[in-house]
């Protein structure tokens, strides 16, 4: 296998990590049925990041991390973690001489 230029390695690794993170978050979105509860884009209940009352309303507080309220907590990162921009930069970087 040919050796790749080292300057491309960080972005390539970052893209791979982002893709894996996106797939994991996508699993949470699907499992929590977040797409059915808040079916708007780009806003979620009128805001990019839902208010505290929507994110942390279960008691005790830690259950918000795994309960149904986390449906609106996993959507912002799933949407914001889009690796497309980084991949586009990476593709452009591959075309730059040097």
């Amino acid at each position, binding site marked *: *296998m*040919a*050796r*790749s*230029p*080292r*300057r*491309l*390695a960080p972005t*390539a*690794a970052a*893209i*791979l990590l982002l*893709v*894996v993170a*996106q*797939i994991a978050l*996508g699993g949470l979105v*699907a499992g929590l049925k977040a*797409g*059915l509860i808040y*079916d*708007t*884009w780009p806003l979620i209940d009128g805001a990019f990041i839902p208010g505290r009352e929507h994110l942390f309303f279960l008691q005790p507080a830690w259950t918000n991390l795994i309960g149904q309220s986390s449906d609106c907590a996993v959507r912002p990162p*799933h*949407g914001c973690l*889009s*690796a*497309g921009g980084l*991949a*586009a930069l*990476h*593709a452009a970087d*591959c*075309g*730059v*001489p*040097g």
Partner: protein
Amino acid sequence: MPPIAAYQDDARCRASAVALAFVLLLQAVLGILTLLLHVPILLALTHQAVAMAALILATVPRCKSALPRDLPCRRQAAVLTEASVGGVITRQIIPNEVRYQDCATLRLTRTRLIYPWSLRFQARMARTACSVCGMICRVITPPTDARSTPRLAVGKGDPAGAQICA
């Protein structure tokens, strides 16, 4: 083989990087449509299938060198490296690169180290046949700017040597 070693600066690797960018863009569009259309099963399944494709594209190395191992250039590369072409790169500075030098990687190695980032775009490129192996390579003309003196330079090279797979 680490997946990040997948990209080499040749046409095939650029194509795979561009393909990954497009797949991720498609994935974003599919995700938004799935959300706005209240998760139709077909769209949701497509969204998941494209996710798998993106993972494969980001993981599987696709950039095997098309060059045979025993190119004349490879043998000459070491000489070029020590003699310096269009600037200076020495075996001592980048010992690991010497092992992999061929038409493609020699070009990458040299340009990457000769020019600071800000000057990369000033290097003019043209396609020509390698005078040693006949392979079409890109010839790199160093920027004429006085600031382009390589920081890692230890001497001046022969610009004519840049015709060999530069």
